[in-house]
């Protein structure tokens, strides 16, 4: 396991994402309602760039004629076939037990902490006064 600085806090606006390469992996880092989530950028269905998809709310219904939405901008929809994935867990909405996309832990840390650690030199220019988003691979 290793941690990688992927962005400065504020660099990814709310509701947006940054897709980047860490090692051999393409990872999408999402900023949703003040929280960050990281997912592998490959749909488990047919391999599309899942993290290029749009974020939607979860649409649900208690019966015909009714619908409600929840979990604003936390469902990621594949740009090819529209499969929905929960950005918190990577689980597919329709087949949560079998179909999931890999997720990675994300944390936010102050630059003052990072300059002490081993993260700085090879990754991202870090300033003591800023905060950074880290993904653990």
């Amino acid at each position: 396991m290793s941690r990688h600085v992927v962005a400065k806090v504020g660099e990814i606006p709310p509701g947006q994402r940054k897709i980047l390469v860490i090692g051999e992996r393409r990872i999408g880092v999402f900023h949703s309602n003040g929280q960050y989530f990281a997912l592998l950028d490959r749909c488990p269905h047919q391999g599309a760039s899942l993290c290029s998809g749009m974020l939607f709310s979860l649409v649900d219904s208690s019966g015909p004629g009714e619908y409600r939405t929840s979990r604003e901008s936390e469902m990621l929809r594949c740009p090819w076939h529209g499969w929905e994935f929960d950005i918190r867990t990577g689980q597919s909405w329709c087949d949560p037990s079998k179909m999931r996309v890999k997720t990675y832990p994300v944390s936010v840390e102050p630059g003052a902490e990072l300059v002490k650690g081993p993260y700085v030199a090879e990754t991202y220019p870090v300033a003591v006064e800023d905060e950074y988003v880290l993904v653990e691979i």
Partner: protein
Amino acid sequence: MSIPSMVGPELEDSRSKSKGLRVVDCDIHPSASSPTELAQFLPEGWRKHLGTYGARMPNQPTSNVVPYPRMAPGHGMRMDSWPPNGGFPASDLEFMREQLLDACDIEFGILQPLSGGSLTTNQELGAALSDAMNEWQLEKWTRKDKRLKAAICVPQEDPASAVATIERYAKDRDFVHIAVPTRTMEPFGRKRYWPIFEAAERSDLPICMHAPATGYHCNTPTGWVSYYIEEHVAFAHPPQTIITSMIMEGVFERFPGLKVVLVEGGFAWVPPLAWRLDSLWKRMRDEVPRVKRPPSEYLREHFWFTTQPVEESERPSDLLDTIRWIGADRLMFSTDYPHWDFDDPKRAFKVELSEDDRKAIFRENAVALFRLDEK
């Protein structure tokens, strides 16, 4: 620890590299770059007519709106298929090369143009639009990339015009099939369409019947459905009527060389349809004495099916059984590019095909049927 970087166009995705799979894609939907592009291929009189009155199509309010809006945003397209330089998906040859032909190692791509004259209610305009579509395919696609092969678009409800169109283009090997939508005005085995069958047989060109967004009838026999998900399922209905009608009307007794490809209608329903036809034929054969053999024999000899969207059976072995029954020699791979329900050749089948079946489905059946190895 590695250095993260933003993904740029220079990044090669390992999945997009060829894995030695040579592919013929039997369902590519080319698009015009602008609403007026196709009109440039019309004679001036029809161009003026089109500008003043538009192209009236059954159950479609205007030519830019489909009856069932789909997968917005994106207009029913793969979200990543919008060309970076602007324009509609599959309207830019350079980007189609990059995203489809090169990325998926497509050796030949069969064009299936969807809008045009076949469903224009003014049939004279329909004939003119068909010709415009044929010239447009040559000019914009097949002469610029020899991998792409065109469809002879015809106004099938006016068979005399359709035959004239077929005869005009049949000798040009840039054209490899005749395109007819699945929701025709009458069941497709009826005699009014026989001149088209005769011309198709004479020119040794298969007829490709693609499920259109629009058609001369409701999208199901009991009326218009509520949802796009229902319409998508209903793409599988007209092909079953086509098979039944053409066999029962005796089309293949009269035209033993006729070949029909059912495009994007699915294929898992084929075995039970054949069983039903055969069992009924044994009981009522004398109603249709022109049908001399079990219907399933005509079906196996005269029909081909494209694969997209490949059925995803719960148990993989069920799909293999289905393929075995239909015959791996009758299935032909298709992507449906640039539509949202695109199938990637390396990921479409969730089951392991034998090497022979894989070669047949992904390439050889189409090469033989469309005579792609002829110059």
